[in-house]
């Protein structure tokens, strides 16, 4: 795209620089705070890994819990959401449109309300209430609309309809053409949906905080706990751990999406 000379605006440039500093500085300060002996004295107090070690001792399990939960969430939304997206994309009935609208509600209203509602109805089932499955259910309810919407838009492409008909005339039954033709064709959208669901799940706090018990803590829940009750250095170290978990994942999956888009076209 040609850059026009009017874009050489010093105002825009300065604003951009200011915002970049605003966004990046706290991350850097936090990383630094987790690696120094004393936040008060700053870098002059020397670098150390003892806060990170302490974090790992106390909160190490939350990392595995969050990643496991996010993966389970991705699998559930795939199994529930991809066929659902197909059905909604092909259906012209008013019921389908209504369901699409309903599906968006968990995203439109604060997840706090969703958590409350879940506790109201299922809070008494102790074995459910005290397991990770309860949190998983909350995560799936919250992330399913993203998967369905992303994949449904891809299924609606007109060339997909022709491909499905072509597969039918060649004798393919439903499962054969769904798995062999349709899913590969919308793969970029599915991967994008998976990325969205994974990151949403890892970073989910509002819902998880309401649904958790001390035995079912996730990373964000642990973070809140450490901010409230631990030294600022420990909180920073824990934040560092979170960043080390999520940023590489974000970037790997972004690279994957670009790769798949290049191979298959959009």
């Amino acid at each position, binding site marked *: 795209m040609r850059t026009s000379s009017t874009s050489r605006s010093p105002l825009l440039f300065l604003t951009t620089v200011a915002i970049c500093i605003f966004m990046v500085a706290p991350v850097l300060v936090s990383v630094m705070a987790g690696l120094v002996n004393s936040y008060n004295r700053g870098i002059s107090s020397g670098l150390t890994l003892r806060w990170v070690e302490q974090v790992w001792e106390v909160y190490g399990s939350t990392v595995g819990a969050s990643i496991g939960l996010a993966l389970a969430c991705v699998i559930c939304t795939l199994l529930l959401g991809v066929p659902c997206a197909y059905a909604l994309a092909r259906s012209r009935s008013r019921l389908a449109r209504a369901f699409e609208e309903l599906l968006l509600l968990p995203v439109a209203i604060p997840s706090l309300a969703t958590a409350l509602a879940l506790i109201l109805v299922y809070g008494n089932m102790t074995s459910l209430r005290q397991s990770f499955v309860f949190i998983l259910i909350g995560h799936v309810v919250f992330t399913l609309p993203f998967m369905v919407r992303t994949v449904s838009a891809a299924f609606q492409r007109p060339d997909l309809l022709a491909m499905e008909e072509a597969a*039918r*005339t*060649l004798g393919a039954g439903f499962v054969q053409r769904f798995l062999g033709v349709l899913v590969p064709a919308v793969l970029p959208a599915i991967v994008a949906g998976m990325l969205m669901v994974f990151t949403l799940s890892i970073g989910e706090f509002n819902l998880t905080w309401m649904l958790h018990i001390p035995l079912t803590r996730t990373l964000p829940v642990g973070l809140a706990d450490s901010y409230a009750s631990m030294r600022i250095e420990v909180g920073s170290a824990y934040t560092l751990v979170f960043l080390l978990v999520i940023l590489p994942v974000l970037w790997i999956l972004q690279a994957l999406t670009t790769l798949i888009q290049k191979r298959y*076209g959009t």
Partner: protein
Amino acid sequence: MELESPVSTQSTRIEITQCAKTYPDGTRGLLPVDLNIEAGEVVALLGPSGCGKTTLLRLLAGLETADPGSRILFGDQDVTALPAEKRGIGMVFQSYALFPQMTVEANIVYGLKIRGASADECRRTAGTLIDLVRLNGLEKKRPTELSGGQRQRVALARAVAVKPRVLLLDEPMAALDAKLKESLREELAELLRRLGITAVHVTHDQQEAMAIADRLALMEAGQIMQVGTAESLYRNPAHPFVARFLGRVNTLARSSEDMAAGVIRLGNGALACPGHLRDRNEVMLRPEDIHLVAPNGGATARIARRTFLGDRVQLQLELEGQPPLMVEAHGLLAYAPGDIVGLEIDTERLLPARNDATAA
């Protein structure tokens, strides 16, 4: 050159009886039609958009359900209730609908894989077909790397790989540019002849239909107006629509005095009206059936415009009492706008224009 069809297919005759299609919102895409297609014949469904030709094709494919009372036979088998997967057809789509994540070879053998063919059989068939449609060297490419003409050939190979008893083509040339269309037309016609397969081909392009098909079925507003070879439709159109759609026509009006006197007025002259057209108030005439001579006391006209179209010359003639006439021929180089010319018309070549109430 092999004389036997390289991809031997069992070609079947098709019998369509009272097939109609009404859509859920009430539009009648197809009124009850009948059509018989012989085994090995190529029939073109030709007509303007909205005439129902694609609807009929999709009914044959099983991608749409026909209204109750319709019947479609492939040979002796009643396929009306069979879904598309089970009809044993091959179909080439307008957009080709190639699977983008599969190579050319994988696309072609897709139908075979579904039927559980062995890897050997797949490879052999793919090899034969790639030779047949001349895609050698492109086996491992993906559809996005191919040109329009190449994609069309892949779509064709994929459709015939499963040895279908009927081949259906939905405007296969629509996505190609004019020059490419002409050369591919010949290839497709040749290919269909070699395969000897029963084929139904939908198009809005007359030239394409005439070049490829053995017979044409001309359709309009959900009905089949006339079926026959291109030549018979052109020379003996059963319906004014057919005459207008195939080729060009001029329309000559007859006033009530003309009809009473049994003539057709042509400017300052009159033609004797042939018997079978006596009660028509409009007749049609093709541009190539009007001959220009030196003014000789018969009807005359003035040349208003001359257009050079390469292989032919078009002249627009003005004359009294009739709309401007279009005349076409090779040659006609001597005439220029403003000249007065005499007209000579073979009345045998006149065609009826309007239906009157009693005619079919």
